[in-house]
C-alpha cells in the first residue's frame, strides 16, 4: 500500500467507491398506516413541534433564572432553539448547493470523515417526549428505551428539520434498541448500520472496526460524490482537536469551587456541536471559556456557592429532555461534572497522531471512536469505573446522580458497580430510573431533595470530624471533645 506524504492521493478504492449497492428494501418491511394519511401526519407534526417549542421555552426560561448566568450563553441559547434555530437555514442553503447531510447516533460515527467529504454531520438521538407514542406504533415494546422510540417517532412525524435534511443516517449497533431502530428506520431513509464490537481491545475487534470505518468512508464518498483526500482529513482532524481543546478548557473550568457555570448550561454547550458547524462552535466556546476564566479570577459563583457538588452519570440526557438536571439544580444541587455520552464524553482521548500520513491518521481517527469509549455496550467496561472515580476526585463531587432510562439495561446493569465504587470513596449515589414523560416529576423531586439533604448532612459530619481531628492534634482541648 503506497503511502504518499504531503500531497493529494487517490483513494485506494477508487473503482469500488462507485458501486455501493442500495441495500434498502424495495417494499417497506414495516407497514405504518398513520404515514399514509398525510393530513393527519401534518397535524400530528404541528402538534409535536408546538409542544417541543413549549418544552424548550420552559427549560430555557428556567436556565436563564440563574443569578449570574454567563453572557456567552446567549449564542448557545439561540442555537438550542432547535426547531427554529438559524442553523436550519444554513443547512438548507448547504443542501440547495448540492451539499449532503449525514445523520449520526451515539458517539461512534467518524465525524471527521463526514466533514472531510463536505457533508454536515448531525446527531439525531432525540430528547422529545411527545414523539414516543408515534414511535410505539412501530416499536410497541413498553419496556424499550424512550430515546429509541422518540427518535423513531421524530422521523415518522417529520418533526425535526435536521432529521428531514439527513440524506442518510449512521446507526451503530450498540444496544438492542439501536439495533432494531436502524432496521425500522430503513423504511424511511437510507440507513448505514455499523457493527460495533462489544469486546473492543482484541486484535480482531480493532481490525473489524477499521474495516467498518473504511466501509463508512466508501458510503460517505458515494453519497457525496466527494473523494476524501489526505488534506481534507487532516484539516478535519485538526478541527476536532481544536474543538476538544476548548471543550477540555470548559471541562476544567467546572472544577472551580464555587461553580462558575450551571450543569444544564454545560450540558447544552456540549450538545450544541451535535448540529452546529464545529468551527463556529469553537469560536463561541472560546468566548465562553474566557468569560468563565475571568469569573474564576473574580470569584463569581453562578449559583449558591454552598450547593452540593453533584455528578450526573448514566444514560444519555438529550436536549430538551432536561427533566433530571433541572430537578437537581432547582432543588439546590449544582451539577459540576457529567460522564454522559451526551455531555463531556466526547472530550476523552483526542485523536493521537504520530505522523501526518494517511494510514496513521485514518487509524488514529477510527480508533479514537472505539478504544476510549466507555459506553456500557462494551465488556469489560472497567475504564468507565476508573474514569468516574477520577472525576469524583477531580471535581470534588459530593454525590452522584445516576440516570437510567427505563429499558436501558446496559446502563442499569452497571449502576450497582458504579454505586459501590462511589461509596468506596465516601460519595453517596442516587439511582433514578425514569422515562421522558413529566408525570413522575414530583416523586423524583422527593428523592432528589432527600438525596441533597443527605449530601449536606454528610458534609456537616465530615466537617465535624475534621474539627475533632484538628483539636486532637492541637492537644489543647484533645480527648474529651471527641
Amino acid at each position, binding site marked *: 500500500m503506497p503511502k504518499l506524504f504531503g500531497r493529494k492521493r487517490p483513494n485506494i478504492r477508487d473503482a469500488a467507491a462507485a458501486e455501493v449497492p442500495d441495500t434498502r428494501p424495495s417494499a417497506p418491511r414495516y407497514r405504518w398506516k398513520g404515514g399514509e394519511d398525510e393530513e393527519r401526519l401534518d397535524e400530528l407534526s404541528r402538534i409535536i413541534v408546538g409542544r417541543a417549542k413549549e418544552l424548550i421555552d420552559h427549560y430555557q426560561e428556567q436556565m436563564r433564572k440563574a443569578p449570574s448566568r454567563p453572557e456567552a450563553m446567549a449564542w448557545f441559547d439561540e442555537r438550542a432553539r432547535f426547531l427554529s434555530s438559524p442553523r436550519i437555514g444554513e443547512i438548507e442553503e448547504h443542501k440547495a448547493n448540492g451539499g449532503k447531510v449525514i445523520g449520526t447516533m451515539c458517539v461512534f460515527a467518524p465525524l471527521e470523515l463526514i466533514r472531510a467529504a463536505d457533508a454536515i454531520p448531525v446527531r439525531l438521538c432525540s430528547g422529545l417526549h411527545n414523539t414516543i407514542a408515534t414511535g410505539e406504533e412501530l416499536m410497541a415494546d413498553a419496556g424499550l428505551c424512550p430515546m429509541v422510540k422518540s427518535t423513531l417517532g421524530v422521523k415518522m412525524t417529520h418533526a425535526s428539520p435536521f432529521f428531514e435534511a439527513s440524506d442518510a443516517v449512521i446507526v451503530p449497533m450498540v444496544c438492542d434498541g439501536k439495533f432494531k431502530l436502524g432496521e425500522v428506520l430503513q423504511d424511511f431513509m437510507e440507513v448505514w448500520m455499523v457493527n460495533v464490537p462489544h469486546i473492543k481491545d482484541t486484535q480482531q475487534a480493532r481490525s473489524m472496526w477499521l474495516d467498518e470505518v473504511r466501509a463508512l468512508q466508501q458510503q460517505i464518498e458515494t453519497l457525496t460524490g466527494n473523494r476524501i483526500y489526505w488534506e481534507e482529513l487532516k484539516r478535519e482532524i485538526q478541527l476536532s482537536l481544536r474543538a476538544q481543546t476548548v471543550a477540555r478548557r470548559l471541562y476544567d473550568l467546572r472544577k472551580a469551587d464555587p461553580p462558575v457555570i450551571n450543569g444544564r448550561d454545560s450540558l447544552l454547550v456540549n450538545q450544541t456541536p451535535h448540529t452546529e458547524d464545529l468551527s463556529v462552535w469553537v469560536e463561541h466556546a472560546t468566548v465562553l471559556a474566557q468569560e468563565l476564566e475571568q469569573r474564576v479570577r473574580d470569584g463569581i459563583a453562578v449559583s449558591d456557592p454552598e450547593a452540593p457538588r453533584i455528578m450526573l452519570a448514566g444514560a444519555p440526557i438529550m436536549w430538551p429532555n432536561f427533566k433530571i438536571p433541572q430537578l437537581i439544580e432547582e432543588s439546590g444541587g449544582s451539577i459540576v461534572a457529567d460522564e454522559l455520552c451526551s455531555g463531556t464524553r466526547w472530550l476523552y482521548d483526542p485523536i493521537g497522531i504520530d505522523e501526518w500520513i494517511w494510514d496513521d491518521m485514518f487509524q488514529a481517527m477510527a480508533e479514537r471512536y472505539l478504544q476510549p469509549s466507555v459506553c456500557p455496550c462494551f465488556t469489560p467496561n472497567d475504564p468507565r469505573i476508573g474514569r468516574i472515580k477520577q472525576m469524583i476526585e477531580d471535581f470534588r463531587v459530593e454525590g452522584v446522580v445516576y440516570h437510567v432510562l427505563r429499558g436501558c439495561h446496559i446502563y442499569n446493569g452497571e449502576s450497582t458497580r458504579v454505586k459501590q465504587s462511589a461509596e468506596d470513596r465516601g460519595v453517596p449515589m442516587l439511582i433514578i430510573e425514569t422515562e421522558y414523560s413529566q408525570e413522575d416529576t414530583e416523586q423524583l423531586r422527593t428523592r432528589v431533595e432527600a438525596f441533597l439533604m*443527605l449530601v449536606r448532612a454528610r458534609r456537616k459530619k465530615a466537617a465535624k470530624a475534621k474539627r475533632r481531628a484538628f483539636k486532637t492534634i492541637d492537644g489543647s482541648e484533645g480527648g474529651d471533645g471527641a
Partner: protein
Amino acid sequence: MTVTAGVDMGSTATKALVLVDGRIAGSTARITGADPERAGEMALKESLDQAGLQLEDVEYIVATGYGRRALELADESVNEINANARGAAWLGSSEGTVRTIIDIGGQDSKVIALDEDGVIADFVMNDKCAAGTGKFLEVIADLLEIPIEDLGDISLRSTKPVNINSTCVVFAQSEVVSLIARKEAPADILAGIHRSIASRVTTMARRVSMDRVVVFDGGPAKNKGLLAAIEAELGHPVVVPRHPQVVVALGAALIAADMLTDDGGGA
C-alpha cells in the same frame, strides 16, 4: 411552653401531630380526598383539639408529604424522607439504635438506612407503580369485601398461603379474581398478598441496609399479617411504633421544634 406541629400530607391519608415541650400531645389521621389543604387543616385542628390547644398556640408548623406545598398554614415544608428518619430515630427502639426504616405509604414504599448518628445514609423508593404499597392492599380489600383494618387478623388464620405471581397491581387484581373463582380461602389469598408485598420491600431493604434494627412505619404497618410476613422474609423481628401512621408527622413536628431552637438542621 413550646408548641409545634407536623402535618404529613400523604397521597391517601393526611396526618397531623402536635408536640408540646417535646411530648406528643395529640395526633390524627384522615383521608386526604380531593382537597388536601382542607384535609391538612382538619387534621391539624383535630390534633389541637386533643391537646386542648388553639391554632394561635402553635409556634411553628412544618408540612411534609406529597401535598406539603398545598398547606398555606405551614411555616415551612420538608421532605418526607427526612421527616420519617427524624421521627423514627426519635422514637428509637428497645433493640438498639434505629438503622433501617421500612415505610409503606399509600402510593409508594421506601426503605431508609440511617448511620449511627441517625443521619440518612441511603434510601430507595419503589418505582412509579403501586406494587408493594398501601394502594395494593386497598384494592385487594375491596375485591375481597373485607374492611382494610381486618386484613391482618384474617390473613394470620391462613394455613396455606397462595402464591401471587404478579407484582403489578392491575395484574395481581385479576390474579386474585381467578383465585376467588377457584374458591381459595380469603385468609390464604391475603397471606399470599402480604408475602408478595413483604418480599418486594425486603428486597429493597437489603439493597440499602443489612442492619437488624428495623422500624416499620406508615399506615400499613398496623397490619399484623403484613408485619409477620416482613419478619418472616427478613428472618428477625421488626419494631412497629405504637402509632406507625404518624411517625412522619412526628418527624415534621420535631423538625419544627429544631427550627425554633437552632439554625434549622433537621437532618
